[in-house]
Each structure stands twice: as structure tokens, then as C-alpha cells.
């Protein structure tokens, strides 16, 4: 593939990359802390959970669906897993990944079953399960936090440590390694497997996929199951970072992640989206927030800027189509793509 072609096929990603580079350059001039190792590692540590969710959500968006319930599902996984570990006599990391991954997949499959079984659009189902999961969680926990957790779960594990000349420590924790694992696994799934290709196809043109013999129920199960697994793993890592389980800690995080993934070029109608865009989208949101903090801007400005960025990103990617439509209306009338 010639290089310009690569750029043309990843327009959104390339544009986002350019904006991100300019932003980093500007921030490094405006604040001498921005490019410090300490700041960069904490950026990664603080966003590992969001990135794990983001790649899960990317798979759902590619398949033409949407999921609102994943952040709350992660909280449910934390509680149920904490209970399970008590039952299993403490547990360990292997058991931890297994249990939280499986509970997450289970919750994802509830979404998939409802969406496929009743042929109801995913946004309606996942808003319903979002409320149901959260309501049940608050009901059974009475909103109580859990502090008494197995020590393996809450102990800090660093995969990278560095002490700079002035004595400050910068480190990367386990969540970052897990995040990298999740990103690579998702990348392989969507880019290099037949299942991934079928997910894109199903999101792009469901009827054509059905006629080609794609197993639709399987596609829904893979998409929401993968999202659920990522939600479960993210929940596990979140506990490792904050060392407690709070039922409403993750409530509301879903829209932030959704915004970042859409900003990264994933199409809400399905059939389009890349890992690169997904990573850039999350990092764009994270760096914006980080930059505003360093510059001492009010945190309320942050939401406004993210909202504005989404509007600009989405509308500029439509301008091309708009001008084409003006020149040649027939093309859009005849073909219904």
C-alpha cells in the first residue's frame, strides 16, 4: 500500500494524530512539567482503565451496536468478584482474571441475548441494563464500600520504576501492562481473524452479512462478550489502583469513554473504526484534561472543550460528503449506502 493511501484510508486517525502532536508541542512549551517522565507515566496509569474499556467498546461499535452499561457492569464485576474471592479462600491474580473476565462475559452475554433475542436496538437494551445493573448493585450493597479486600488484589505492582535526579519517583503499574495486553488482543481480533472481518461486515451491512452466511447471534455474542470481558478486567484493575470497591465509583464514566472512541473515528453506524484511532481518541481526551490541569484552567472548561472537539471532528469529516452531495445529488439518491 503506498504511503499516501494509508493516510487517505485513516483520515480521522491521521488528523487526530496531527492535532495531538501540535497539542503536545504547545503544552511542552507552556508547562515544563508536561513532558516530564512523572507526568507521562501518570497519564498512562490514570487512563489504563479507560483504554481497556475503549477497545472493548470499539468492538461493539464496529459490529454496529453501542453499549452504555459497561462501566456499571465493571462495578458489578468488582462486587461479585470480591464475594467470589472470599468464597474461594482469597484467590490470586490468575483466579482474579478468570473470575472477573467470566463474570464480565456473562453480563455482556445478557446484553447480546436481549438485543438478538428481541431484535431491539442496542442503545435501548444497554440503557435498560445500565439501570438494572446499577439498581441491583445499589440495592444489594446498600451503597456500602468494601475495604477488606485480598492483599494480592490491592498490593501495588510496578512494571517500571525510575528515580530522577531530583529524587521523584515515576513508575508504571500493572494496569498499564494489562491494558497493553487487552489492546494487542483486540487488535489481533479485529484485524487478523475471520471473526473480526465478519464483525466489520455485520456492522457495515447486516443484511448482506446474513446472506453471506455470517452467524449473526455469534457476532452479537462476540461483540458484547468481548466488551463484557474488557469491562470485567477493567473493573479488576480499577480496584488494584484505588484499593477499595465503591458501588458508584464508575457510574458516569461510560460517556467519557464513548466520546473518546467516537472521536477516534469509530462510526456509530458500525463497520468502521481502528485500534489506532481508539488509542488516539482516549489519549486526546486525557491529554486535554491533563494540559488544562497543568495550565490551571477551571475543570469545568474541560467538558466544554471535549464537547466542542467532538462537534468539530464529526462535522469536518462530513464536509467532504456534503460538498459531493451538492455537486452530484443523483449519486446519493440511487445508491443507498
Amino acid at each position, binding site marked *: 500500500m503506498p504511503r499516501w493511501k494509508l493516510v487517505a484510508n485513516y483520515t480521522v486517525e491521521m488528523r487526530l494524530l496531527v492535532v495531538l502532536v501540535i497539542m503536545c508541542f504547545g503544552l511542552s512549551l507552556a508547562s515544563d512539567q508536561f513532558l516530564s517522565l512523572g507526568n507521562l507515566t501518570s497519564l498512562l496509569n490514570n487512563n489504563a482503565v479507560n483504554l481497556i474499556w475503549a477497545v472493548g467498546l470499539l468492538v461493539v461499535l464496529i459490529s454496529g451496536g453501542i453499549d452504555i452499561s459497561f462501566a456499571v457492569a465493571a462495578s458489578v464485576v468488582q462486587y461479585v468478584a470480591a464475594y467470589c474471592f472470599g468464597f474461594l479462600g482469597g484467590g490470586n491474580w490468575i483466579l482474579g482474571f478468570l473470575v472477573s473476565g467470566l463474570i464480565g462475559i456473562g453480563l455482556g452475554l445478557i446484553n447480546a441475548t436481549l438485543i438478538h433475542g428481541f431484535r431491539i436496538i442496542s442503545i435501548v437494551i444497554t440503557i435498560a441494563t445500565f439501570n438494572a445493573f446499577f439498581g441491583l448493585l445499589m440495592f444489594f450493597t446498600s451503597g456500602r464500600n468494601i475495604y477488606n479486600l485480598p492483599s494480592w488484589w490491592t498490593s501495588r505492582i510496578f512494571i517500571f520504576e525510575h528515580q530522577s535526579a531530583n529524587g521523584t519517583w515515576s513508575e508504571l503499574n500493572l494496569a498499564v501492562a494489562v491494558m497493553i495486553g487487552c489492546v494487542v488482543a483486540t487488535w489481533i481480533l479485529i484485524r487478523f481473524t475471520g471473526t473480526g472481518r465478519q464483525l*466489520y461486515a455485520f456492522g457495515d451491512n447486516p443484511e448482506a452479512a446474513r446472506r453471506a452466511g455470517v452467524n449473526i447471534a455469534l457476532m452479537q455474542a462476540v461483540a458484547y462478550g468481548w466488551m463484557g470481558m474488557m469491562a470485567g478486567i477493567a473493573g479488576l484493575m480499577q480496584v488494584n489502583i484505588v484499593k477499595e470497591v465503591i458501588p458508584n465509583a464508575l457510574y458516569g464514566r461510560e460517556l467519557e469513554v464513548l466520546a473518546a472512541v467516537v472521536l477516534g473515528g469509530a462510526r456509530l453506524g458500525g463497520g468502521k473504526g481502528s485500534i489506532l484511532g481508539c488509542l488516539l481518541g482516549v489519549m486526546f481526551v486525557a491529554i486535554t484534561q491533563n494540559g488544562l490541569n497543568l495550565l490551571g484552567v477551571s475543570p469545568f472548561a474541560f467538558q466544554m472543550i471535549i464537547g466542542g472537539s467532538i462537534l468539530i471532528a464529526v462535522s469536518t469529516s462530513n464536509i467532504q460528503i456534503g460538498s459531493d452531495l451538492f455537486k452530484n445529488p443523483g449519486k446519493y439518491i440511487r445508491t443507498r449506502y
Partner: protein
Amino acid sequence: MTTDPEWVLSLENVSKNFGGVKALTDVSFRVKPGEVHCLAGENGCGKSTLIKIITGVYTPSPGAKLNILGKEIEHITPALAREMGISVIWQDLALFPHMSVAENISFDEVVGFWPKLVRTETFKPKVEAILKRLNVEMDLDEPIKDLPIAQRQIVAIARALMGNAKLIFMDEPTSSLTQSETNMLMRIVQKLSEDGVAVVFVSHRLAEVLAISSQVTVLRDGYLVGVFPTEGMTQTKLAELMTNLTLVNEVTATPDIDTESILEIENLSRENEFQNVSLNIKKGEIVGLTGLIGAGRTELAHALIGMTKPTSGTIKLGGKEVNFSSIRDAILEGIAYVSEDRLSLGLIQPQSIADNIVTTVLNRILTFMGFVSTKKKETMVNYWIKELAIRIGESSDAVSTLSGGNQQRVVLAKWLATEPQLMILDNPTVGVDVGARAGIFRIVKSLAEQGMGILLISDEVHEVHFNSDRVLVMTNGEINLEHNPLEHSVEQLESIVYA
């Protein structure tokens, strides 16, 4: 395959019932290797049911015999049909717009339940070989959505060949192609046929189909009418076989209409679409406009109703020069445009018949408070249903429940309600059964008798010859001939248009 079987596909005693409705009764259908075959019949005659049985989507009633390449097949599934070399190119092509050419062509290779590793690169040599065989060049990494429709069609054909197709069904392949694109498709079909790949066309464009295929199988109401060689077959004869009606084609032209002009166009041009078009429509006159697809007919209509702006020339309506900036202006001045694409543009399918009829004239059925008056609406709807003899259950039923012919009457009602002085009909019989077409033209004729001017645009030479007062032939964006149906025969007109 060592032996060369006589038939690539042979079906016998195929019946299919849906509940109590017989969709197919004792039909047989055979295709020879490398043959170009046409499957003809009206809407609802069982064509698509037959294709779906052959490709394993439906199971036929017991007793059916299916033989592919000399092998008896007990139970056919979509996967088996594909494996045996039978592919269908659906009317909507069933491609994936955001995926690349190579990914689309190789898609069927990656379908499967169990996860497996795939890379598009590994398919590319085979994809390239197929495109080379079809004699086309294409950028394999281009997403489908950026390709023109003709190229997408080639992608769909290549996708069928990727699975080593021995028989390709093409469902309405030319319905959205221009003439040169159609010619290219026909060349490709010819090439496939020479390579021993049989092609079965399902199409309503009888002229084209007759030109390329060697055999035609006609179905009617789920029964096999017969298999006929296309040599010596005419469009009229084929239409009669399809409908079992003796279609009396009489020229309905009125000689020497001498009334004032409604529409006068002088030297109208629009870049790359049409040049120096001049035409004149009088009160009560039906002017036919025909020509090959892509000749600029629909483009001219779009300019007349203000959808596009002409680059030069004048349009006069009732003697007054007009310059529309939108369709709304054109409607207010008394022009109605019945579009070609009834399904997506002409009607709001899920809405009721009544709501569809009144959409253009909502402001005339309001109460003094500004709400829609149920009484006024009902009066208007009932008037038009009666006037156009639309056969319906209830006026509150969804439009999508009606047959093609009755849907077209609803479209007419909707536009007639605006009380136009000029009506532009763009291919008004697309998707309307041959038998129901006469009814539509009776309405058109009576509208002309009441003084309306009518521009009848159609692909089908027969339609304009028999139903217009005079016919204009458009070629490459110019009107270069006027044909008088009273003086010249339809064969003469045909020879000019298809020259």
C-alpha cells in the same frame, strides 16, 4: 469434475407453499453450462422464491429434484450452494461499503463459526487474477463506498468468481447503470459465458435481456409457462406470455393539438448533462421523452423542477419565464414531478395511504386553528381514491401493503392533489406489473383530456410510442429526433433509439 454434465443446474417438480399460498407449483428449470439465460415473470410470479430454493434459503415441498453439475442434491444449504458453484448477485449487491475491494471480493473465504487467522494480503494474488480475467483494473484497497455503482457490480461478480462460480444469478443487474456501464457489464457476461460460466438474468428490462440471453424461462403465478429461445421473441410476445393477457397496443395519440403552450424550453443546457434542449408542451398534450439510459432525460427533468440549475437557456411556464431555486417553487407554479424511484423517494412506505396522499397539500386541509382537519382530509382522500380507482382495504393501511400499480396511483393522487398544470412522469411503470400499466396510462390520458400538459419519460420505447402524442428521442444529452406515432411504426422508433 471429469464428466461434462449436460446441465449445470436442473430442477424438477419444484413446489413451494407459504401457509396456504402456493408460491410455486411443479416448476422445472434448467441451465446449460456457459449459457446466458433469462428468468422472466411479473412481480410475485415466483422468480425470487425459485432463486431462494436453488440457493438453499427456502426448502421446497417434498418431491422436488435438484441436480447440480450432474449430482443429485438431497438437501441444499446456502453454504453447499456456494461450494457447488452457484452464486447470486442480489439487486442491492450485498457488498460492504466501508470495506476495501479486496476484502469484499474475498469476504466469503473468511466466513465461519470458528476463529481463524486471516490476512487480506494472502487473498490478493487470487483477487488480482480474477479481475484480470474480467479484464478490469481496480485499486484493491479502495473502499467500496467510493466506487461508482458499475464498479461495485464488477466487485460483486468477482466475489462470485472467487468461489469458483459455475452459475451466477443476477437480480436486476442493470437497473441503476448508464448505457455505457450496461454495455461493459454485457461484455463481462459474454466473457463469463465463453469461459463456461452460466449466467441467469432476472430483469424487467426485457429489451436488454432479450439481446444478450439465448433462452428465456417464463413463470406466471407460480407456474412454468415455458422455455423459449430468444431468437424471434419480441417484447410484446414476452409480455403476453408473462401476463396471459393479449395486450392491445393502440396508438392513442391525438393528431394536431392546437392549444396554447404550457411549457416552452429554449436552448437549455447544463454542463455534462444536456445541451441546447428546446421543447414545447401544449395544454392537453402528452409528450414522450425516450432514449438510452444516461442520455440525460432524468437530468433534464431535475432542471425543470428546480432540483438543479441549468447553465444556460430559458424555461417558460404559461408564457412567463421562470427560474426555480427549489422544488417547492416548481410545485407552487403548478409542476408535479413523479420520480423514478418510487420506493425511496416517491412515497413514505410505512405511513398510511391517506397521509401519503395529503403530504403535498397539507396547507389546504387545515382548520382555522391551523390543525389538520380530519373531515377535510377524509373528503380529499376519498375523492382521489375514487377518481383513480385505487384498490385498497382501508385508507389507514400502510402504503407498503399495496401492489406496485396501486402504489403508483397513490403517487399520482398525491401530485394531482396539488392541481398541477404540467406533470412530469419519470418511468412511471417501473416495478408496476405489465397488466396494471394500462390502467396507469388510462389515467394519464384522461388527465391530458382535461387539459394538463404531460411529459412522459421512459426507457421503454413501446410505452412512449403507444401513449404519447409525439415522442422526442434524446441521445448524449441532445434531443435529436421527433417521432410521430401516427405516421411511423414502433419498430422504426426502436431502430433509432437502439441504433
